[in-house]
């Protein structure tokens, strides 16, 4: 089975590095990284990854808006919303808009891998 291809969207280089290391160590392939909404949408449409980890707060737009756009373009990548604590509405809205799963910061690498695996079970 070929490796699942993942796009990471997060404005923090620190978090992108950790998420990438964690995914790579667990047998996933990180095909791209984006630090803002515009790049995220471009890369997502271009690369058609199997999964996108999507941080909600980005400098130019919200993760939820990216999600909306991608679903409108009928991109079938699985989407994992990354949300800060206490933003229950973001998670509910995200799931309604067609995200497969979510994870709340702070999280451990085990929780991240669990969430990614769960998303692929959909």
């Amino acid at each position, binding site marked *: 089975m070929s490796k699942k291809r993942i796009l990471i969207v997060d*404005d*923090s*280089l*620190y*978090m*992108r*590095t*950790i998420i990438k*290391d964690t995914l790579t160590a667990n047998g996933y392939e990180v095909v791209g990284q984006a630090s803002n909404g515009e790049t995220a949408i471009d890369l997502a449409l271009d690369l058609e990854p199997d999964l996108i980890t999507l941080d909600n*707060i980005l*400098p130019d737009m919200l993760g939820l808006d990216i999600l909306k756009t991608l679903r409108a373009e009928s991109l079938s990548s699985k989407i994992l919303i990354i949300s*800060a*604590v206490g933003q229950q509405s973001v998670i509910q809205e995200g799931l309604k808009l067609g995200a497969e799963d979510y994870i709340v*910061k*702070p*999280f*451990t*690498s085990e929780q991240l891998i669990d969430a990614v695996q769960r998303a692929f079970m959909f």
Partner: protein
Amino acid sequence: MKQEIINILIADDSGFMRLMVKQMLQENVHFKVIDSATNGKEAFEKTQSLRPDVVVLDMLMAEYDGLYAVKNIMKYCPTPIILLTSLNVAQSSQVFEALQLGAFDFVSKPLGVFSSKIRTVQDELTEKIYSAKSVDISSIIPQSSILQKKNHSPHTFEQKLPYQIILIGGSTGATAGIEYILHNLPANLPVPVVIGQHMPTHFITSFVQRLQKECPLSIEMVRSSLALKAGCVYLLDAESNWELEKMKNGEVVFQKTEKQFIAYNLPSIDALFISAAAIFEEKTLGIILSGMGRDGTEGMKKIEQLNGMTIAQDKESSVVFGMPRAAQEQGAVKYMLSLREIPMFAVSCLA
């Protein structure tokens, strides 16, 4: 209770010291000095062939020094090692190297011309041999290999930070952990980090120098009236117990305190954590790392009561699970995490 005999190998290039240490250890009926070595190579070879329970190793030896022995013993026949070191900065930087490579702990030889003063460390050495014997050696080995990875990448933080200070408390087995955590904090950390590590002051001095070389954050020893700044890391010295105090102008500064604590003193992690929690309340993030005893538990309880964040190093990644367990037993640990997870977790707490 019948106690097992602990077999010990001594390595020191001074015949007088070998004799002194041997005599001192043999006074304890549970200790048996099975052999001695005069340099690092011999120490490694004898460890390999005799398989002692604990090695007591002088750092400074001619030709093959203590570092050589630690490297090879931990690689080929992992055995708990207690380092004997002199009180000078040049040697103490080697000690950190040795701890990174997996040495269990160290005892610093008392200052003075007369090596017979070594007796003053008898209790400390005895206690450390007992805990070295009971340590799960596999918890020490991987530290240096796994924990090298560095991530100083910038992180985007919230405007209004959920936590305003990171406190770290550690003892035996924690120095490699502290290094790892500092090497994996973003260079633009928006809060101060204050570290209480049980260690003599001159070791803290060379620890600070070692950290400064590789870490982009500013790293300083505390001194009286020094004000906390975001993005700076402070290490307590062992001259005093230290507290944080909020000044009228809003600055938070370090102050020496005469207060004595039950668990440990000079420096007391409880003193630091309790005083910090009183100032920062729910915006305090406390981390307890590997260590003997229970210092930090009272501080973690206080942070927990005030709804701050409490993290402790888990059993698997701790060399000595004493301090994390003590805090956990008091219900003062929200997250028990592997060392590897701690920096990312702490940073993402600051979202």
